């Protein structure tokens, strides 16, 4: 068994600093195990969120050596241990304490997105028929565990703080899932352009790189949405036709 040293951010909204800790490293260990070990033995009150410890709930997001990561899925063996491992909270959200940030903005944003509105059922028992091929595309987006790492890394939020104008990659993925849902009949293009601020995304693809669920956020969600918006706004005839098609599908 070897040991590793850590520099962990301790503090709250009023200020703080990095504190050094050491932990024993055993085979297969992840960063969250080290945090738990430090909590149990050296800093009972070290704040971090976690729930599933299996990469499924998206609670344990933090920045490990400067990279946005799920701490429960980051193996110690993937990190260079000859120098201290730094662990800091996400930067795009206000700090609560230590590694815990206030992510409530994300929940408020989601509420403002027009909800799912299905067409009338296909069968008398209230059910629908959909081909697997049509479902596949949307299932990719529905893998999202809402870890908000993509929000954290997006410069529009992280550096330019445009939280009031831009919903961020996570919610563009969410809108894509709704818009491309085989049963949905709502039209969210005007919102995308105005309230959701899709134009602020300049396709840097940083979000795609950090997504632990490997969702191709930019290519599969954002770019097709941008195209829809362009079609809708600059080609009114096509938009009209599309809307008519959507209505017919109902």
């Amino acid at each position, binding site marked *: 068994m070897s040991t590793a040293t850590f520099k962990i951010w301790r503090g709250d909204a009023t200020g703080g600093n990095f504190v050094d800790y050491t932990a024993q490293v*055993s085979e297969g260990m992840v960063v969250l195990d080290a945090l738990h070990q430090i*909590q149990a033995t050296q800093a009972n*009150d*070290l704040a971090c969120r*976690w729930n599933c410890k299996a990469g*499924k709930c998206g609670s344990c997001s933090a920045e490990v050596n400067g990279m946005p990561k799920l701490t429960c899925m980051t193996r110690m063996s993937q990190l260079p241990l000859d120098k201290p491992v730094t662990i800091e909270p996400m930067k795009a959200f206000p700090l609560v304490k230590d590694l815990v940030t206030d992510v409530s903005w994300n929940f408020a944003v989601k509420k403002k997105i027009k909800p799912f509105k*299905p067409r009338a059922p296909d069968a008398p028992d209230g059910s629908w028929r*959909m081909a697997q091929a049509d*479902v596949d595309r949307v*299932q990719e987006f529905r893998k999202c565990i809402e870890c908000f790492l993509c929000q954290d890394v997006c410069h529009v939020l992280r550096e330019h703080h445009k939280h009031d104008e831009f919903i961020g990659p996570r919610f563009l993925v969410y809108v894509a899932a709704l818009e491309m849902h085989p049963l949905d009949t709502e039209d969210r293009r005007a919102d995308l352009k105005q309230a959701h601020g899709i134009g602020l995304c300049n396709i840097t693809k940083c979000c795609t790189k950090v997504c632990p669920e490997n969702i191709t956020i930019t290519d599969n969600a954002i770019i097709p949405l941008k195209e829809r918006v362009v079609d809708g706004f600059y080609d009114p005839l096509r938009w009209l036709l599309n809307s008519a098609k959507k209505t017919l599908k109902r």
Partner: protein
Amino acid sequence: MPDYPTHEHDVLIIGSGGAGLRAAIEASAAAVKVGLVCKCLLGKAHTVMAEGGIAAALANVDERDGWQVHFADTMRGGQYVNNWRMAELHAKEAPARVRELEAWGALFDRTPDGRILQRNFGGHKYPRLAHVGDRTGLEMIRTLQDHGVHLGIDVHMEVAIVELLKDGDRVVGALGYDRERGQFKIFHAKAVVLATGGIGKSYKITSNSWDCTGDGHALAYHAGAELLDMEYVQFHPTGMVWPPSVCGMLVTEGVRGEGGILTNKDGKRFMFDSIPDNYKAQTADNEEEGWRYTQGDRNARRPAELLTRDHVARCIVREIKEGRGTPHGGVWLDISWIKKRIPNAAEHIKRKLPSMYHQFKQLGDVDITREPMEVGPTTHYIMGGVRVNADTQMSCVPGLFAAGECAAGINGANRLGGNSLSDLLVFGKRAGEHAAKFAKESKAGQISAAQIEEGARSALEPFDRNVSAGQFEGPYQVQYDLQEMMQREVGIVRRQDEMERALEGLAKLWERARRVGVTGHRQFNPGWHTALDLRSLLTVSEAVTRAAIERKESRGAHFREDFPDKDATFGKTSLILRKGPDGAMQLRREPLPALPDHLKKVIEEMK
């Protein structure tokens, strides 16, 4: 009245897993004011981890399925000590609850003709689990969450409830603290629904997430409700065993449903050696037939690997105990062998079991398309919980309802895979509906300042004890020692002397827990949270141990080395725990309600 913020609701729901969200949706449909509190963030409750699917007799894949078959399967799996009325309602209502999810946006995997696809699972006669790859729980929780947030439900995230407030006999609210700031909050409500999930964190090796500390079980018990079937703790046969960091993490039964086989270190498929009599008729007696079953042959019987969880877990323990285990103390689970049977096996495995592929690759350095996995039993689910009325989900305490894993009855002595997610939907809905009805018919009760003051005082006690001075111990060691002890003494294979030792151990741990101290301040302080969780963990651990000592037979998930057989008298008896007037835990036996004739007939016909 202490000066804490007070929230007024008609119905207060505690827990935001599948059961809590479904209850909240239903209550809000009845046009009452609904509050939802959870100690995690919204959408992150333990339900998010569910993998395999939701059991419902939709009959999309095999038209021979129907509620009668699902009912009979559930009763057989539960060794006939289930609450028959709950099993009946569950089997009848699950299909409508699943279709409803689709109407709210869920996207299940499809059959070739475009309907909801269903997969095989242990103990289910026909392919019955509606699923989305192996992330069904995520789909379910996200669907309910995204639908629910538009219904005017007040959500209080990261608030942990520490006490239920009472006015005489009735529950009229709850006291909690907000984790972020450490402030107390009062919730005043006409009806309260507990949907707090399981107790997995009382054991060392578990598939459960952090919030499964048995809070609802303990809150209900301390408020005067009865706990039922607490001896039945399900150990899932396949958890990861290596590396240590992920020990206990679930390997979905879906692996076996897709054709995965269990072998010991000698390469022998040991499950075929011991097929219980009551399953002989429906289990394949050779490997060839078992394989055909997993590939959808309707005339084939299921392979022995898909017998019920209690049985498979015990066979695995036997192999390990008798020296036929793998290097890290498990057995082999192999799906990669199917490459001998089908082309493009690796792609097929990755498509059908994406999270399993990912989990082993990322955390265990194992490529499951090429190598076998090392697996062993893990604490997974509690069949026992708050005793409730089957139709309304109300406990014996007026105004207190429970649904989901924290309620008891539907599963009897052993739960079938997939029957939990459907339980959450069916009984979450019922709890929400009846809690709203109760609220409409009731006047607001009085909350008591004295109870709130006492609740807050005792919650803050750990701060008064100075750990740094070395006089007191921190909460984590007590938690570890409890988990270690429950695993060792009240685990899969149980014995009188060991469990009696556990009772003594629990008394000592209670002593230690009462003297636990924490450092720092109240703002997001995990040490403090752990100190408070201890009270729940100890209460449920004691309940499990007492009931397990009392049941001197083996049935379903409860296995006694000293009483290895079933006992007819116990088979008609329920064990009920309640807090006595002196504050000590009291246990009593009660006869199980008799099965009505029409359901007896259903079971006979399905044999």
